[in-house]
């Protein structure tokens, strides 16, 4: 019996040594060690190489200003989107040859294999509905619908060969602003504020202003934050009434009481944070604080009553109403106050010719008149304030319009209008390190398709990010297990229009 116990003890001791001795360690772990050594070795080869460290994010202060990849020329962006797609053929893309074909049947070669949103059968060609002239040292062709803008032609750099693969408003707008023609991706303003933060801790970094009576067809997703933290979505401000809805204290609540309640909420949140250490709670506290500061600063910056009369005269703005001109003036004020990205959407450019409002010889001209003076004023005002060189102004729609007159369902429309056209349209950029008086890209003789200098939404996005100091391939956000970027797998910076 005693011997048995001895044996058992001996055995237990041996078992124990197996756990600790070097001999057994090596015997048991050899395969693992080999694999580790191999892993280390391959790691030394820099397999996944140059690991770009993720953009560190301070959740307690998501708008803290941060450095871009390199020195960017632009500090802010004002993006003027003409929702509905303005006709390049009546604004910037002068096609005298098209005039000669006016009223003739569209050649079959232009229709074969093509699909249009509304054109059916054989449409007629439609010449330019306005006269053009050349302006400035740059010799840009600008139509008579834009007499003011023509006077600052030399500030602009045109992109005349912009193309898209979407011919419906919603998807095309999403592609232009989020890089993908479907819902769910962050918009370019969200990417910019995610990358750069905001210079003014009292104001949102990304502000959206709409005019024209409707939201863009793609809805609020064109200024959404997608999978980026939601603080980066565009804050929609209004030029009449309360600039930001639900920001003002309700009647009977004074600012001290508001402060006290926020303090109490913050305290409770702080306690929860000490228990759970969830950074989202810090983020929530920061958002309460920011909302409190915005209650004071947003109404102030959004108030255009205090602007002098000659400024209103310059922009054609009128306090108290909702208009594109007011929004443009606000954009200048916001940029002056350090807002990073101001996005304007002006609805009403869908010139099909189905009614007077969408007729190239009525509604379209009225639209041109509402933007001509304000945009010209914006460029000059930014310039005299020393802000144009650090503010990138981008103008464009979501696609172009056909050189043919629209014949909805095969019947000629009652007014002169053009159908959606993804194959060629014009955009322009100014300020923010863009070449003065530049032009890139050409369309064929009738403006049907781009023949050189073709650029896409991704190229434009890459260029905007480049001007802000970002390599668009490196501004990424990890989501669902992989890094995402605005330009997906595409995008080339358009060096031709960069000064």
């Amino acid at each position, binding site marked *: 019996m005693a011997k048995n116990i001895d044996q058992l003890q001996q055995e237990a001791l041996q078992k124990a040594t197996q756990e600790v001795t070097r001999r057994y360690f090596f*015997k048991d772990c*050899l*395969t693992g060690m*080999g694999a580790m*050594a*191999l892993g280390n*070795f391959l790691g030394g*080869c*820099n*397999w996944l*190489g*140059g690991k770009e460290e993720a953009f560190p994010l301070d959740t307690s*202060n998501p708008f803290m*200003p941060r*450095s*871009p990849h*390199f*020195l*960017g*020329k632009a500090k802010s962006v004002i993006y003027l989107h003409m929702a509905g797609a303005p006709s390049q053929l009546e604004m910037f893309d002068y096609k005298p040859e098209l005039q000669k074909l006016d009223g003739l049947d569209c050649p079959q070669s232009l229709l074969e294999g093509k699909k249009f949103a509304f054109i059916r059968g054989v449409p007629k060609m439609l010449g330019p509905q306005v006269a053009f002239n050349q302006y400035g040292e740059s010799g840009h062709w600008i139509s008579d619908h834009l*007499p*003011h803008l023509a*006077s600052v032609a030399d500030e602009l750099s045109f992109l005349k060969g912009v193309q898209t693969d979407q011919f419906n408003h919603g998807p095309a707008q999403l592609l232009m602003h989020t890089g993908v023609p479907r819902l769910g991706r962050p918009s370019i303003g969200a990417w910019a504020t995610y990358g750069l*933060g905001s*210079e*003014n*801790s*009292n*104001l949102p970094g990304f502000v959206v202003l709409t005019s024209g009576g409707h939201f863009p067809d793609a809805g609020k997703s064109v200024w959404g934050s997608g999978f980026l933290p939601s603080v980066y979505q565009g804050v929609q401000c209004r030029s009449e009434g309360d600039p930001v809805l639900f920001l003002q204290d309700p009647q009977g609540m004074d600012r001290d009481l508001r402060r006290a309640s926020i303090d109490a909420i913050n305290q409770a949140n702080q306690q929860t944070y000490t228990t759970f250490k969830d950074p989202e709670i810090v983020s929530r506290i920061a958002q309460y604080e920011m909302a409190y500061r915005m209650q004071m*600063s947003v109404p102030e910056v959004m108030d255009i009553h205090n602007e002098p009369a*000659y400024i209103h*005269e*310059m*922009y*054609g703005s009128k306090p108290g109403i909702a208009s594109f001109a007011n929004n443009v003036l606000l954009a200048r004020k916001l940029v*002056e*106050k*350090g807002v990073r990205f101001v996005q304007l959407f002006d609805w009403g450019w869908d010139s099909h010719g189905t009614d*007077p409002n969408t*007729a190239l*010889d*009525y509604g379209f*001209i*009225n639209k041109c*008149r509402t933007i*001509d*003076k304000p945009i*010209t004023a914006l460029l*000059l005002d930014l*310039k*005299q*304030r*020393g802000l144009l*060189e650090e503010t990138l102004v981008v103008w464009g729609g979501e696609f172009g319009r056909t050189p043919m007159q629209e014949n909805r369902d095969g019947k000629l429309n009652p007014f002169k209008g053009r159908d959606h056209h993804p194959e060629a349209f014009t955009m322009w950029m100014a300020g923010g*390190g863009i070449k003065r008086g530049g032009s890139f890209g050409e369309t064929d003789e009738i403006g049907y398709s781009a023949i050189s200098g073709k650029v896409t939404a991704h190229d434009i996005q890459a260029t905007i990010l*480049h001007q802000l*100091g970002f390599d668009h391939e490196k501004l990424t956000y990890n989501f669902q297990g992989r890094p995402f970027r605005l330009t997906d797998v595409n995008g080339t910076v358009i*060096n*031709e229009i*960069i000064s």
Partner: protein
Amino acid sequence: MPDIDWLLLIGHFHPLLVHLPVGILMWAIVLQWVSKLPAFSSVSGAIPATYLVGALMAILSCISGWVLSTTATYPADTLNLHKWLGIAVAVIAINQYIVYHQQWQRLKAPVSVLLLCLLMIAGHFGGTLTHGEGYLTQSLGISPAAATIVKKNIPNIQEALVYEDVVKPVLEQKCYSCHASLKQKGGLRLDSQEWLLKGGEDGVVLRPGNLMGSELYKRIIMDPLEEKHMPPKGKLQLTDAESRMINWWISSGASFHAKAKDIAQTEQIKKLLTSFQGDVVVEEDVLPAEAVDPAPANAIQKLQQLGVAIYPVSKGSNYLAVNFVAFTEVDKNMLALLGSISKQVLWLKMPGIKVDDAVIKAIASCVHLRRLSIEHTGITDTQLAVFNQLTSLRYLNIIDTKISIGGLQKLDQLKQLRQLYLYHTMVLQSDVPKIRQYFPGITADIGDYRVETLVTDTQVLRVGG
């Protein structure tokens, strides 16, 4: 019967032979490990023989490899590693056969793992020798060779050296991996003027002025399916613009010292050239050449906590941009903090700030300041004069202040000043010629632009008038 170079023939068999030991030995290892499963125990009889065949093939590979190494030039370091690792594989494989023969049970597993590791590492270096450094990783888009090439910043392509700034970077990126110091395939090096002109085993590759006599160009534009096409299949090819640049350079006499503007250019070449112009912002124009120590981190942090926008002007730079746009007043505490980072401040914005002498003094202490915005303030001519010591200043924004031409006159040390914004000051349009005299090359903007109101601006067109 032609002479057969037997050595070369044996050597050239190496790339074929090496795959045999790799495959056979791997299979032996697989068999060894699977045989442990009861269902596959029957395969164990085949293991020793497989190891033996693998070992013999490894020996043959070693011999042919050694022969090959004597007939061609490879980077010595990698070659050495590959050689010894290859020999080790052969030795260990024989060893494993002996282990099996002698039934040394405890050694079987460790030796097989060792063999596997050696096989992979030796194979990897073999691959590096034939395909070049980074072949494996280039598919991941992070080829170390390409990553280290920093695109040179060319502010004005017409002033750039055609060989140094345009041609060489292309060769560097697309050709050096096989034709430079590391490797000289075909005995050809392309990494200097001498080597380029000397040519390779098959003769001269570059004949200045004679495009079609220059093998260098012919190989590039050759049908990519041809065996002689360069860079070889699978390697990064030259872009159309790049090959056209090489065309232009060779046909214009392949000068190694000429500037772009000295060589005749067609419209097309001119356009192409601009695409080689730096796509990087001209940093030396904005960033001081001299380095500066990092600013004290706690000062930056405190300013950030107060709500001041403060950040490095670009990633990795110690120079700072500071923006007080959220404030109307800068208190003593902030000024003290600003003082502690004064050397690093490159851009400063203080729009609408209440200006007193303490503020002016703090700004004036920022010796490297390039851009200063102090618009919408009560700054006086006398206070402005203090900034005369900010000799690096390039941009000064004093719109909406009481500054007069007299104040500007006192800034005679600001030789670098290029942009001056004077909208809504006491400075008049008629002062501009004088300002141009004080600051040569300056853009002085008095502003006060108007956009006249046309009748049509507010007219709304309606059908039927």
